[in-house]
């Protein structure tokens, strides 16, 4: 896992083909190896830079911080883990939520940060994503979530688990409002994130060779007492099993998302009013149920 991080040095060895790559070349190629197209991990801010026009966006709910509701302490206090993650990433939790335009289409994007406690989902991740979805419903904007997470955060216990239901509830409202939701699954997407919003996109799009699953490979091996086949739980495997709509190279991702959003009714405008008009069908549909 650590091998796919880009260190501070000038050169990096590709974990896919062992080619030595100049850091700047890697960055201009969106952290995809120019030789073998191995997708190295991307942090949340870089992810947003890749998707939003001009690399700029308006961030929401940046100041949300977990209060350590369980006063959790294992070999290290959870509070210390939070602080270490904040020091390492400059973020207060494992997701950035912002709005900006994708090829001219005003969109809410949530990008998860793996370096923050494995991208795990606790109350702050749950709240920020839910608020993002609710904002999208109010503004009639599409939603894109870039998943990169080990799942629900153990250190917030059942509260973390319930964020799955909370976000899915908000997605139900988004769906009812006939607004687009695209889930982008990157390496890794597992556990409670896969078993909630990651699998609920109008499109589920994965990057190549990403680990995607519910149970972790080691847990499955322990259960069945067998080695897992090569490529099990990778993007291409899920595509073959019918769980994904597309596997797309990161360098094509923005164009594919923009294309899909247009299919789903979004239109390109230069103003913030680039919202999706409620269609006659939606208006005649079942009444909205949110109180």
């Amino acid at each position: 896992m650590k091998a796919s991080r880009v260190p501070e040095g000038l050169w990096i060895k590709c974990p896919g083909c062992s080619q030595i790559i100049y850091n700047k070349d890697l960055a201009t190629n969106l952290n995809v190896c120019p030789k073998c197209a191995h997708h190295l991990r991307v942090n949340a801010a870089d992810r947003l830079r890749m998707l939003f026009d001009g690399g700029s966006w308006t961030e929401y709910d940046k100041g949300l911080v977990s209060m350590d509701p369980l006063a959790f302490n294992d070999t290290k206090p959870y509070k210390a883990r939070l602080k270490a993650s904040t020091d390492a990433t400059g973020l207060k939790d494992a997701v950035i939520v912002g709005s900006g335009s994708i090829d001219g289409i005003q969109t809410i994007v949530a990008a998860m940060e793996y370096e923050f406690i494995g991208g795990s989902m606790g109350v702050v991740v749950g709240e920020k994503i839910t608020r993002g979805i609710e904002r999208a419903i109010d503004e009639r904007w599409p939603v894109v979530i870039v998943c990169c997470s080990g799942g629900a955060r153990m250190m917030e216990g059942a509260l973390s688990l319930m964020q799955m239901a909370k976000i899915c509830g908000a997605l139900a409202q988004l769906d009812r409002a006939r607004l687009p939701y695209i889930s982008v699954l990157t390496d890794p997407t597992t556990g409670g994130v896969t078993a909630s919003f990651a699998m609920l996109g109008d499109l589920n799009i994965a990057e190549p060779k990403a680990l995607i699953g519910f149970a972790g490979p080691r847990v499955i091996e322990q259960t069945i007492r067998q080695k897992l086949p090569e490529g099990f739980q990778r993007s291409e495997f899920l595509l073959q099993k019918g769980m994904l709509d597309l596997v797309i190279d990161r360098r094509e991702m923005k164009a594919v998302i923009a294309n899909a959003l247009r299919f789903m009714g979004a239109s390109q405008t230069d103003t913030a009013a680039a919202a999706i008009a409620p269609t006659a069908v939606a208006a005649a549909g079942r009444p909205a149920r949110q109180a």
Partner: protein
Amino acid sequence: MAPDTLEFEESIAVILKEIEALALLPATEARDRQMESHRGRLESTRAQLYASLTPWQRVQVARHPSRPGFEDFIARLFTGFLEIHGDRRFADDHAVMSGFAEYHGERVLVVGHVKGTDTKAKIHRNFGYARPEGYRKALRTMRLAEKFRRPIVVFVDTPAAYPGIESEERGVAEAIAVNLRDMMLLDTPVIVIVSGEGGSGGALGIAVGDRVLMQEFAIYSVIPPEGCAAILWRDPAKKVEAAAALKLTAPDLLKAGLIDEIVPEPVGGAHTDPVAAARMVDEVLARALTEVSALDSDTRLGRRYEKFRNMGRVGIDFVEEGR
């Protein structure tokens, strides 16, 4: 018969053995008096022990092999159960059961995990580990209930969703995710009772409802204590510490605002008196169902959304800095 006691119930096991030994003696007044006194001692010992169970002890009670499960509740609380099989996609999962039944004169759909009682049944039920088909069957039959305006009663008792190859191949994550989204919009009253192990996503996958009730000694957790210990402590033996840290007991869940009400259990746990345990569930379930059924659709669905929406509270679970 060996007394059905847990490792921490040594003091109870001793008394039970004494009672058993006495029962083998010829019935005399003296013997009966002695047995009566032993029974009194049993009750007070149990009461004392169960008044202050540790979280790990509660985990053991929640997993007790004789703990009344879904089939037991069907038999004691419902009449005329008619099981409905299959997801109409791939298979009939035996770890989840669903069917029509009558509850206090009203037709309802009952859905729940089944762990199985003896070895053969346990294997048949896959020990309560549901595959994707189980979640899909649950939702399919819940849609039937919605269509015909019948309330839904859900019993949750699973260690986890089945972590196996075929589970992943057939999209267990997708099956759970769809249930979370679609149960939020099911236009009929849904009452959930966590009756044993609320094992992570495998439990939550059928546990979105208008009321979430939890039996006193049930647990509800993001991960089993053993798994948490293995990952965070790198030592599965730290399960006792993990069980405490995870705050997975019914009082913990109530305090965190994640369940609506605790259903009391007989002293010593539901398995010591399944009849009384079922009666206690009945009382709370009947009231909850009446209250929820009295609401109109929009109010009920609005409240269901708000309930889950408010899990994770400003100023208690998280703060907003820089505001």
